C-alpha cells in the first residue's frame, strides 16, 4: 500500500530525514518509535503533504502511484489520513459542517452522490459513540475549547467518519490520560481491518499495549535503524533510546 524508498527531506535547508525506507501492506499496523528530533513528525507531515517540507531525494508510493505531487486534499481523497499531534482550533466552523463538507468532497471525488442530511447524521452518531464523544460536541466549533484529550478523540472520530485506507497517527498518545488512551485505542482497534493500515508514531511504548503493532521500527537521526516485532518496543522501553543512540550500528 505504502512504499517509501530512500527518502530525504529537508526543512529550511536542514536535512531531517536521511534515507528512510518503509513498506506498509494492507491489514498491517506499523509503529514508529524514536527519540525527540529523530524525524517522526516530519515523516507524518511529509505523508500528509505539508508544504514547508522539501523532498530532496527518494520516492513515496501509495498503491504504486507517486504521491509526492498530490495536494494535501487529494491525498485525503485517495485515502490517507493524518491524526494531528496538535489538532487546530477553527472557531466559527462547526464539527458537523466541517465533517459534512469533508465527507461529501471525498464522495464527489469518488463519483458518489453526497450523503443526505439524515444519513450523515446517522453516520456521525454511530461514529461518535465509537470514541465516546458527546453528541453535543458535534455542533461546537472544530476543536475550540476542547481539552487535549477531547482534541485527540476528535481526531480519531474524524478518522472513523472518513474511513481512510492509510491512517497515520502522530503522537496521538501524548498528553492523554489512561482513560482517554483506552478510548482512543479502542476506537482504532475497532477500525482495524484487512483492508486498511495504520502507521502509529509514538515516543512511548505505552500506547502499543493497547494498539498492538505487527511491526515496530526505530527511527534515529532520520533513518530507520532497527525493525522488529512488538517485543522491540518493550526492549526499547527497558533499555531507553540511549541504547540506539550509542550503538546505531547494532541495528543493522
Amino acid at each position: 500500500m505504502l512504499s517509501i524508498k530512500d527518502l530525504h527531506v529537508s526543512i529550511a535547508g536542514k536535512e531531517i530525514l536521511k534515507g528512510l525506507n518503509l513498506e506498509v501492506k494492507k491489514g498491517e499496523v506499523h509503529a514508529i518509535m524514536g527519540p525527540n528530533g529523530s524525524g517522526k513528525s516530519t515523516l507524518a507531515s511529509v505523508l500528509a503533504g505539508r508544504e514547508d517540507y522539501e523532498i530532496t531525494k527518494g520516492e513515496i508510493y501509495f498503491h504504486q502511484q507517486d504521491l509526492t505531487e498530490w495536494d494535501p486534499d487529494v491525498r485525503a481523497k485517495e485515502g490517507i489520513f493524518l491524526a494531528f499531534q496538535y489538532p487546530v482550533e477553527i472557531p466559527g466552523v462547526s464539527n458537523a459542517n466541517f465533517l459534512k463538507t469533508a465527507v461529501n468532497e471525498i464522495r464527489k471525488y469518488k463519483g458518489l452522490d453526497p450523503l443526505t442530511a439524515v444519513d450523515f447524521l446517522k453516520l456521525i452518531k454511530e461514529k461518535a459513540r465509537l470514541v465516546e464523544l458527546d453528541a453535543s460536541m458535534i455542533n461546537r466549533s472544530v476543536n475550540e475549547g476542547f481539552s487535549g484529550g477531547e482534541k485527540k478523540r476528535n481526531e480519531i472520530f474524524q478518522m472513523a467518519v472518513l474511513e481512510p485506507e492509510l491512517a497515520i497517527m502522530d503522537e496521538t498518545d501524548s498528553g492523554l490520560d489512561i482513560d482517554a488512551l483506552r478510548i482512543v485505542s479502542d476506537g482504532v482497534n475497532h477500525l482495524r481491518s484487512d483492508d486498511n493500515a495504520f502507521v502509529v508514531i509514538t515516543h512511548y511504548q505505552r500506547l502499543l499495549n493497547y494498539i498492538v503493532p505487527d511491526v515496530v521500527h526505530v527511527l534515529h537521526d532520520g533513518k530507520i535503524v532497527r525493525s522488529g516485532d512488538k517485543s522491540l518496543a518493550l526492549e526499547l522501553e527497558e533499555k531507553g533510546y540511549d541504547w540506539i543512540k550509542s550503538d546505531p550500528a547494532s541495528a543493522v
Partner: protein
Amino acid sequence: MENQDNKLQDKLVRQFADFEKNWNGSVSEHFRNLRKEAIHHFGRMGFPTTRQESWKYTNIKPATANAYESAVDPPEPISRDAIAPYLLPETCRLVFVNGQFQPDLSEIPELSAQMVVQPLSRAFKEHPELLEEHFARYGKYEGSSLTALNTAYADGGTFIYIPDQTISEHPVHLIYLTDGRSGHRISYPRNLVVAGKNSQVKLIETSASTGGEACFVNAVNEVRVMDHAHVEWFKVQEENLLDFHVDHAFVNQDQNSYCKIHTVTTGSAITRNDLNITLNGSGCETHLYGLYWLGSKQHVDNHTLIDHARANSYSNELYKGIMDGQSTGVFNGKVMVRQDAQKTNAFQSNKNILLSDEATINAKPELEIYADDVKCSHGATSGQLDEQSLFYLKSRGIDPGKAAALLTFAFASEVLEHISVEPLKQYLSEKIQQRTGIAW
C-alpha cells in the same frame, strides 16, 4: 473635480429656498431657525476633504461629482418585489424610498401603549415637544458639514419613542431604499430614537437600492438611551456598487444603560460610518460590532468614538473586515476615558483578512485616557487566512478553494454570532455563505 464639488454644494444651498417654501408655515420657528443655521453651516464648510484629519483616507469627491436631484421628487412606484429580499418576519416595518415614507409597503402593528413609531415628517406635526426636546440635541452638526446638510433637509426618517418601562415587542425594521432608476438621487434619512427609562427596543436598519444611476445617502441617527434602557441596533448596508453612503450616528447613554450596535457593510462604492457614543452616566455598557466585506474598488471607513465620561462603564468593540479586489478600508477607533471615568473597562479589536494583494486597510486605534484606574486594550491585525487551519481542512479532503471559503465564513461568523434577532442572523449568515460559495 474641485469645481464639481462646489457646484453640488452651491446647488444644495440654493435649493434650500425651494425646500423652505414647501413648508407653508407647518414648521415651527424653532425648526425653521435650526434648519437655516444648518444649511448656512454646510454652505460655509462644504463637503469634507482629505485635508481634514478625520477624512484623510476617505476621498468623497467621486460622491459629489454627480448632479443629484433632491430626494423630495416623488419616487417612481416601487413594487413589493423590490423590498421582498429584505423583509424579516414579525417586525414593525417602515419603508422609505429616496427618503419618502411608503405607507403601502410598511406594516406597523399595534404598539405597546404610548409607544411611537412613525415617519419623522408626521412626528414634527404630532409630537413637536418631543422633537424640540431631542431632535438635533445629540447630533450636533457643528463638527460635521454632512450632519449639517442632513439637519437642513431631513424629513424622511423615523421617530421612535419608547416610554419608560416599555418593552417593544417587535423589532423595528427600517428599510431605506434608494431608487436611481430615473436619475441621480440624494436622500437624507434621519432617525431619532428615544428609549425611556428601563425600556427595551431592537432596531434593524436596512439600506439598499434598486439600481439605476448612482445615488447619495447622507444619513444621521440620534439615539438617547435613558437609565437602565436597553437598545440594540443592527445596520445592514447593502446598496449597489455605484452608490455612496455616509452615516453619522450619535448615541447618548444615561447611567446603567445598555447599547449594542452592529454595522454590516457589503455595498456601495464608498461608505463612511461615524459612530459617536457618549456615556454620560456611570455603569453603562456598550458593544460595537462591525463586519465589512468588500471587493472591486469599494471603500469603507468606520470611525467610532466611545466617550467614557463617568465611572464604572464597559465598552467592547470588535470590527472585522474581509477585503478582496482593490478594495480599501479604514478603521479608526477612538476611546476617550475622562478624568471622572475611573474603573472604566474598554476593549477594542479590529481584524482584517486581505484576500487579494491589491486590497488595503488602514487601522488606527486611538486611546485617550485621563483616569488612572482603568483597563483598556486595543489590537489590530491584518493578514491572510491561517495556513495551519487551511492545511488542517485540506488534510481532510476539502479542496483549497472550499477550505478558504470555510475559513472566511468562520471569520465573519464571529461577528454574526452576537446578533440577537434570529431571522436577521440567518439572513446575513446565508448572504455570507453565498458570497463564499459554501453550501451545506
